[in-house]
């Protein structure tokens, strides 16, 4: 087992929590004094920094939301002046106005340190060639991974997204041992490689995938690991927290949230009360060390479960399980909550359909109508209409069973659904049009 910073990574929980309390306390004082926004929010919440007497008192603090960043566009929440900033990132704004994140040199250092620990925990380091196929630019994925990978002494192959055939050639020619990209882009790479007659297993040195920036499932992991002969690790983060920051370790049992960097809570999204470890709820994160854009109790909207036991790898920092859905992604179909990840999970159990899918939500009269389009796998087609109808009925049956809502399934030709190089857009909701 290789460690980046064993002193911190193996620190007893009690010591970590003492450290967290000190960091939280000074963060709250600093914001109360220097952030007009958070000062006002604490006042209207009737809480003063002196009320934070233990780490558990964090629950007395008011939340922050994505809309706070949008409402204060571009930089009204910053607690550093422009001359102290060394970088901006800007989120794409697919769900609304874009949001801007600023970084001081210290902020970048902590972000990079977080990733250095994470990449080390999946066994990467000096000697590895890490292909960064996240977009470089305003999106945090590319540059974030880039500096994290350089920090651990790996060789970075900064391919960014696009031009997939060239990506595969470079992967082969330069012996990439790891790739960082979205899970849907890795699927695309796998398919393009097959068309080029390249077997990722045999013809490349690729052994590790660092996959994130969109939700994916355990079954998809198993399928990709078998198909491409790699170990696939989940990575987590959003631009508001800095960018991609946390990954699973080789145990693959949730991503470690470094306690000296972030304080994680799981809360009930309705009552807003903290939940116990093991209970499913909304992920709420306080970044304990951030200068330019501090985030306190930030509600990203991701649904998951926390495990606070010491990991089998020896790391004492809590783990958060794979994101099970995002509150924003949640579809309400005839009053029932449906997450696209549930659909993906169910489809993965059916060999006759492929890995790609598209969800179309529409309204027929007063009723919501859920249509799932999936590709009929090559080789699972016989000449018989009845056989195809059976495949479709089976998919409909499985989806209905796991979603508790009626689903229409449309079988489409292999390769006909859109492929995505960045974050995939699998849901078309026609109801709002």
């Amino acid at each position, binding site marked *: 087992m290789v460690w980046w910073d064993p002193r911190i990574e193996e620190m007893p929980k009690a010591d970590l929590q003492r450290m967290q309390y000190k960091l939280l306390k000074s963060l709250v004082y600093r914001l109360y004094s220097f952030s007009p926004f958070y000062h006002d929010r604490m006042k209207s919440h009737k809480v003063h920094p002196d009320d934070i007497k233990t780490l558990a008192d964090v629950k007395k603090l008011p939340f922050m939301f994505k809309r706070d960043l949008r409402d204060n566009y571009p930089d009204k929440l910053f607690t550093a002046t422009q001359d102290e900033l060394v970088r901006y990132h800007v989120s794409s704004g697919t769900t609304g106005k874009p949001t801007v994140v600023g970084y001081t040199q210290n902020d970048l250092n902590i972000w990079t340190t977080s990733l250095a620990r994470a990449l080390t925990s999946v066994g990467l380091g000096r000697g590895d060639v890490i292909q960064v196929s996240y977009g470089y630019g305003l999106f945090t994925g590319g540059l974030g991974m880039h500096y994290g990978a350089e920090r651990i002494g790996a060789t970075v192959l900064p391919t960014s997204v696009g031009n997939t055939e060239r990506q595969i050639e470079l992967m082969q020619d330069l012996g990439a041992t790891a790739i960082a990209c979205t899970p849907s882009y890795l699927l695309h790479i796998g398919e393009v490689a097959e068309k080029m007659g390249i077997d990722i297993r045999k013809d490349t040195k690729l052994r590790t995938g660092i996959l994130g920036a969109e939700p994916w499932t355990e079954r998809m992991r198993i399928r990709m690991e078998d198909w491409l002969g790699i170990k696939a690790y989940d990575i987590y983060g959003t631009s508001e927290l800095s960018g991609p920051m946390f990954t699973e370790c080789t145990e693959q049992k949730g991503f470690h949230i470094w306690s000296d960097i972030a304080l994680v809570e799981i809360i009930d999204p309705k009552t807003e009360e903290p939940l116990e470890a093991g209970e499913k709820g909304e992920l709420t994160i306080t970044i304990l060390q951030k200068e330019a854009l501090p985030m306190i109790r930030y509600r990203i909207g991701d649904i998951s479960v926390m495990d606070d036991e010491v990991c089998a790898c020896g790391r004492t920092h809590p783990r958060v399980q794979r994101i099970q859905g995002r509150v924003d992604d949640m579809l309400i179909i005839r009053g029932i909550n449906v997450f696209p990840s549930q659909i993906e999970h169910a489809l993965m159990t059916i060999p006759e359909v492929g890995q790609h899918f598209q969800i179309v939500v529409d309204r027929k009269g007063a009723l919501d109508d859920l249509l799932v389009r999936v590709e009929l796998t090559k080789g699972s087609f016989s*000449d018989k209409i009845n056989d195809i109808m059976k495949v479709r009925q089976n998919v409909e049956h499985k989806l209905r069973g796991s979603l508790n809502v009626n689903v229409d399934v449309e079988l489409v030709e292999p390769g*006909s659904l859109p492929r995505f190089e960045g974050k995939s857009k699998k849901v078309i909701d026609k109801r709002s049009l």
Partner: protein
Amino acid sequence: MDNKKFVIKQISVFSENRPGRLAAIAHALGEEKINILAFSIAEANGFGVVRALVDHPEKAHDKLQSLGFNIAFTEVIAVKMKDKPGGLYEVAKILGDAGINIEYSYAYSGKDGAVLILRVDQVEDAIKKIKSSGATLLERSIFH
């Protein structure tokens, strides 16, 4: 007795039910200079199956597969019919009397007469029955 010569290789292509899919298939076959001898489309809710007898089934299979189509070979048989009123009845009666169940069928009428293409459950068995009943089966070599 060699009944294999009566087994004809049909190509079956899975197709979404939207405009342009047939054109895509036909264009691909045309490009490869493959001639379509007989063909039908079966439609089910939301998708279809295009079935065709072509002069070069292997070539057609490889071409369509390389374009990403879901394609399969299916064994069919072809029965000669008289190209005049009552011609279909004559053949259909023979099949019915012989107890042959038809899964699906399509027909064409060409310069050498009319032909009924049949997909049946038990191909070997059907060939035997049709031959002994007096109807004429067409050999594969006529098609490809």
